[in-house]
């Protein structure tokens, strides 16, 4: 699903976020990216989401070489990927329902189908009864679950999440990870950046550890 070949990302200041990184995530896998802050986790996800372009090397997502995705085609590319953010990035001027419906509106799904799918997504994260609330009236964990519902409402094959539990206490974190786990069980590929090693160990998924933008083969049962 995801292949990185010798990817380097150098910022204008000269510092390298990623140095010659190669890795691969198979279809249907649930993989964690770990490492200290500044190790390159976020940069890796941003390259996959085409928020950034690599300085050199290739990023291939679902058989598409991201290098060949033209600027104009980026929106269509991003619609294939579900994204979850640490600060969930919900829109605070509209209720939960509208937040989750946004990707469907962007994709041009008709109203009735959209309503059905939004409720299905909210049901999956256990927030069906809160569809009319404004995000700020929800707890941090609930807000993050709304963010997840928004990411999966278009049923993407790939979901990437940047520190999705960064702002949550351990119980809520586990809850969020269980939700991810359920998506993985129905075939969604997940790539999750996190530094919560204790939590990851409990889930028993593959782990890609980064340090200074390079692969560090610690705690990786598959490689």
């Amino acid at each position, binding site marked *: 699903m995801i292949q990185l070949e010798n990817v380097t990302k150098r910022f204008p200041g000269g510092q390298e976020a990623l140095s010659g990184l190669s890795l691969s995530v198979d279809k249907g896998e649930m993989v964690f990216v770990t490492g200290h802050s500044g190790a390159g986790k976020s940069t890796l996800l941003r390259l996959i989401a085409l928020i950034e372009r690599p300085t050199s090397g290739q990023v291939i997502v679902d058989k598409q070489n991201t290098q060949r995705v033209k600027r104009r085609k980026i*929106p269509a590319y991003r619609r294939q990927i579900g994204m979850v953010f640490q600060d969930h*990035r919900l829109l605070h001027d509209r209720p939960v329902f509208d937040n989750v419906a946004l990707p469907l509106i962007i994709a041009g799904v008709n109203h009735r189908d959209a309503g059905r799918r939004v409720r299905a997504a909210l049901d999956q994260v256990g927030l069906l009864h809160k569809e009319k609330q404004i995000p700020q009236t929800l707890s941090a964990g609930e807000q993050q679950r709304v963010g997840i519902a928004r990411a999966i409402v278009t049923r993407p094959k790939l979901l990437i999440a940047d520190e999705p539990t960064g702002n949550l206490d351990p119980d809520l974190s586990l809850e969020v990870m269980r939700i991810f786990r359920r998506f993985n069980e129905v075939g969604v590929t997940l790539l999750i950046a996190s530094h919560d090693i204790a939590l990851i160990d409990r889930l028993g998924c593959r782990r890609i550890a980064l340090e200074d933008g390079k692969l560090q083969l610690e705690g990786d049962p598959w490689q």
Partner: protein
Amino acid sequence: MAVTRNADAVAPVRSSGAFTTWLTRHASSSLGSLGRLARQPFSSLMIVMVIGVTLSIPAAINVIVKNAQSVSASWDNALDFSVFLKPEISVDEAQGLAGLIAQRADIERVDLITADEAMATFKQQSGFGDALNQLSDNPLPHTLSVRPGPGNTSASLILLQEEISNLPESEMVQVDTDWVQRFHAILDIVRQAIAIGSALLGIAIVVIIGNTIRLDIENRREEIEVTKLIGASNAFVRRPFLWTGFWYGLLGGIVALLLVQYGLYLLRDPVGRLAGLYQSNIDIASLDVAESGALVGGAILLGLFASWLTAARHMRRIEPR
């Protein structure tokens, strides 16, 4: 297996018709923009008023010029000129000459005012009746009042007047309608000035709307970033702002229209009184349907142009971080 099921579930995205999708998006986007304006009634009203007042100025001047034109158009004798004949010409000769001139293709009609008629009218209108009675003989000449045909241009009129003044019987040709031509020339200048003024005010409106929408974009930067992050195209994030421009234009145009009509309503009585003093009956023409449409439509175009210009410039710059 599960992946295939997911792919099937995505299918309705493509199955809903492209046109219906387009229409639904615009409908919800336009209502959304209108709702956003309604949620900030005071600032929206201010901008709409600024646009309305700005547009009403050229529209009002235009109406005034239009009315001035219609008043001056009723002076259809404006092109008439008088030919004073030499004193030795008799009434019969004058009559013959009048008939001759009237046969020309470029002349509509010729009226003979004999010296006696002229004297009688003069006595009656001047109030010097008694004094004039003292005169032993009538010093006034016979006069031909010539009305040129409608096909004449101002150049051909001058030629015509020259030709007639060269006739041996004619003493002098007097064109007493120069001021009408001057009046028309002034109206032309005013109309030209309106065009220039309208262009400047149009630019002002584009700047006002553009700046308002720029602020709106800045305020919604976060929203634009998030929307782009989950796959919205530039066109998608631009759409609500185009609709905002549309609504500003539409509402501003309607305000301008109402202001002009209300102003005319206020002028109706005083103008009627003035016309009464001149024993005439002037009816003020207001903006007709086509002109009202042009005013509101022009305002909408300005709004769309301003928002498109601003949104196109800023949307490309706002990329997710």
